[in-house]
């Protein structure tokens, strides 16, 4: 039975429970709703919640746990020697799953009978042929062992599914009857319902924590796995980045230094573009501009922030790159060899960050009290002197925070550097050379090859960890600077 049907049945039970609970509550006080502790609908909701929540919890848990248990059991039943090492285990398991899916597909399309698909005597060659006819082509690594494992996998999965459907519906019915038996006039249904809802609200709020835990765990586990295969000191201090997907282990140089250099260089150029423009724009908008200019220019600048980064990436690759190449390339000064370069990516990223710097700084400058400006004017300072000597020093912690946040955005930015910065990892000072960044390499190491066991793929998680730690650190410092050095007015 598909999961959707189970869900529909459980929801139908809950709806029935609502009606029954409400009726029963009203009947228990002979139709006089004033003698009930809570509103009649509360009794209905109570029954519905009792039917829904335990059943759905079991359903979700079962769906999560069942594949793990089945995988373990299938693996333990595999004959000795079928699995060479941990890396090929996941490959064998994915083969098993593919064959099992193929068998189900073949049965559902009528190419194969259920008995053939499940019988242990089925010859492997016949199955491979039938599977090929429904579009599942098996690799050379698949043999009879895998077929038997796949049959076992299918059998356990279908048994598990039936058991799950049975159990979930049983729990729903049990919850419903239990709640119905509780329902009578004295029962404090509202208190109960509100407690459950509060628990649900807390659960929703905890999703943020769960996400963080998920991020940290997925990064940490794979990073530890990577450091088992590749020495950490070479990762952190190695100055060459040359992964080779053919030679597994040892053959590749996976030093993070050139990538970090590229990342920092591009971010530096981006900030050199974004900070002066953004800051002066914010000063002009908050101190000089008339309301009409402000109302027109501020939203227009903020459009730049709403444009997806893929657009900037394409802009860098196809517009800015060729433009710079025309000026600095071999036809011009001769510093630049190709359209993708640190300068291209940095410039475009700077454009992207302008509104980020300007809106944050604008808010901070506006928060400086007018009395301080008036005091400065009263002493005879001009407007620019007031801004330079009174407003900016007062807003400085906030502006530094904004710049740090912009830097963290620049370091974590992916699409612009993937498309605009090039792919070669280099340690060079020339801003017109192609370099690459941490984010770009995460993308290139994790797209394409699905084998997560090699150090060349796992290094992406170590890179992700580095990135996560750096951006988190920058954010924490930014918050600290803002809190510590903020002038408290009033």
């Amino acid at each position, binding site marked *: 039975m598909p999961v959707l049907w189970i869900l529909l049945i459980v929801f139908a039970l809950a709806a029935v429970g609502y009606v029954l609970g409400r009726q029963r509550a009203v009947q228990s006080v002979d139709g006089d709703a004033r003698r009930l502790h809570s509103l009649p609908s509360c009794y209905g909701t109570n029954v519905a919640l009792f039917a829904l929540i335990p059943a759905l919890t079991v359903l979700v848990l079962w769906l999560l746990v069942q594949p793990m248990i089945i995988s373990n059991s299938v693996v333990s039943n595999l004959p000795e020697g079928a699995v060479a090492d941990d890396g090929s285990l996941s490959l064998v398991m994915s083969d098993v799953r593919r064959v099992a899916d193929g068998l189900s597909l073949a049965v559902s399309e009528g190419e194969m009978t259920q008995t053939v698909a499940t019988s242990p005597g089925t010859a492997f060659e016949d199955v491979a042929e039938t599977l090929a006819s429904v579009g599942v082509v098996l690799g050379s690594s698949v043999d009879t062992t895998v077929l038997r494992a796949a049959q076992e996998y299918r059998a356990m999965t279908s048994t598990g599914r039936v058991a799950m459907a049975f159990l979930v519906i049983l729990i729903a019915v049990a919850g419903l009857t239990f709640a119905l038996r509780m329902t009578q006039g004295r029962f404090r249904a509202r208190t109960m319902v509100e407690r459950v809802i509060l628990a649900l609200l807390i659960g929703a709020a905890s*999703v*943020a924590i769960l996400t963080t835990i998920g991020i940290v765990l997925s990064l940490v586990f794979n990073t530890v796995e990577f450091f088992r295969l590749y020495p950490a000191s070479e990762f952190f201090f190695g100055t060459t980045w040359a992964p080779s997907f053919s030679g597994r282990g040892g053959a590749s140089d996976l030093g993070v230094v050139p990538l970090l250099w590229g990342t920092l260089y591009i971010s530096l150029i981006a900030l050199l573009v974004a900070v002066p423009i953004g800051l002066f724009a914010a000063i002009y908008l908050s101190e000089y*501009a008339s309301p009409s200019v402000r109302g027109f220019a501020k939203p227009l600048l903020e459009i730049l922030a709403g444009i997806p*980064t893929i*657009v900037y990436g394409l802009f860098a690759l196809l517009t800015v790159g060729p433009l710079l190449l025309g000026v600095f390339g071999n036809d011009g000064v001769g510093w630049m060899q190709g359209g993708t370069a640190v300068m291209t990516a940095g410039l475009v990223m700077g454009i992207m960050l302008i509104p980020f710097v300007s809106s944050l700084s604008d808010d901070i400058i506006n928060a400086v009290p007018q009395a301080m400006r008036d005091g400065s004017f009263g002493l005879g300072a001009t*407007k620019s002197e007031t801004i330079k000597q009174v407003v900016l020093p007062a807003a400085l912690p906030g502006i530094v925070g904004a710049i740090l946040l912009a830097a963290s955005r620049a370091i974590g930015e992916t699409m612009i550097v993937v498309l605009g910065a090039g792919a070669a990892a280099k340690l060079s000072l020339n801003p017109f050379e192609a370099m690459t960044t941490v984010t770009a390499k995460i993308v290139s190491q994790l797209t394409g090859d699905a084998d997560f066991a090699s150090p060349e793929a796992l290094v992406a998680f170590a890179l992700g960890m580095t990135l996560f730690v750096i951006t988190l650190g920058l954010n924490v410092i930014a918050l600290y600077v803002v809190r510590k050095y903020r002038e408290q007015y009033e």
Partner: protein
Amino acid sequence: MTDISAGVPPTATTEPKTSLVASDARTRRRNAAEKRFRAYGMVAIGVGLFFLIVLAVSIVRSGLPAFTETVLSVEFTVSEEQFEDAESQILKTAVYEAIFVNALNEQLQAKNLDVAFDAAAIGRLVGKPGATIRTFFRENGDQLGQPVNFDLTAASRVDGYINGRVTRDTLVDSRFLQGSDLDLVDALIEAGIVKERFNWNFLTGTDSGVDNPGGAGIGASVIGSFFMMLVVLVLSLPIGVAASIYLEEFAPKNRFTDLIEVNISNLAAVPSIVFGILGLAVFIQFMHLPQSAPLVGGLVLTLMTLPTIIISTRASLKAVPPSIRDAALGVGASKMQAVFHHVLPLAAPGILTGTIIGLAQALGETAPLLLIGMVGYVAREYPEAFLSGFVEPNSAMPAQIYTWASRADAGFYEKAWGGIIVLLIFLLAMNIIAVLLRRRFERRW
């Protein structure tokens, strides 16, 4: 105070007289500095707006050609005898092609345009016209003997030549197009046979192979994005609103609440690629959900959008004045009832606006989709049914644009820009809806 009179002797006679009317050098310097400073600000705004205009112009200029296609519109007659004759041959399509070439030749000569060309050149220009013509007459036998107008889609390089993307100088002779073909194209343009028309296939079609930029369409990936947004909406709206209600209305001030707050503000600043790693490790590696599926993309984007939605929802809950809550509590509502019956409906427009803006952000996000396999996949077909749309591999608009941008054939760049126009139109529409909603329902307390 005393040392002033002691240290400075009265030297009034040596000091120049200051005037209220004429400004002295120092004032002039200060005023010039003032003007300069002001000019810096104007320049900064100007530069920002300049970048915006350059971006807009380059998107529109490079993207619009993706919405048109070049066709060779030729009208000619195939008689019944010719049809019978062609069907009896072994190479049937070659015969039709010869008929087509003859017709084209006649029309060119009628306009006194003399260009030598052969069937191979036609093949490079419009692919295999013979097959198209044959299929048409086999299906519409009654059209035999009457003049029929055929619109044959030109190859993408011909399209590029007309749009100025390919020029005679840059063209390298290949099996796709040769320099001599351009003479033919020029003649065809002069004869009025080459026409431009709106390319519906770009909007409704699916992605093509790597060597056919002309046939690539964005339709399938729009559907992929739609399913992803559906997942994001269904998950992030309830979770986001529930979390905000808890944090804003019920949460006591304790360690646990602080932890949640810190987490939310940190998640808002985590680079999007890290969410992609999370999706890859948790949803694909650990839970074995299908790769490239809109469901997985939606789940990842939900986690990314949640902080945005929570922050805007909390702001709109905060904007509801406490007197509303007090009044509800005063007439005997429980705290939960006060929130759900009174505060939440009043905050709904703000929540909706925030959600739409969060969705717009999620719609344009690309980096996480790269990691969950939306890029390696060529979206050649539409999903079969509504539910399978969630789990069948598909692409999404930004991922599709990236795929096109990273292909070797320059013909795909035009498609990528066109895709960006489609994406930006969706974003613009969503933002306009959000602004209108805010205008319509905004309430000042």
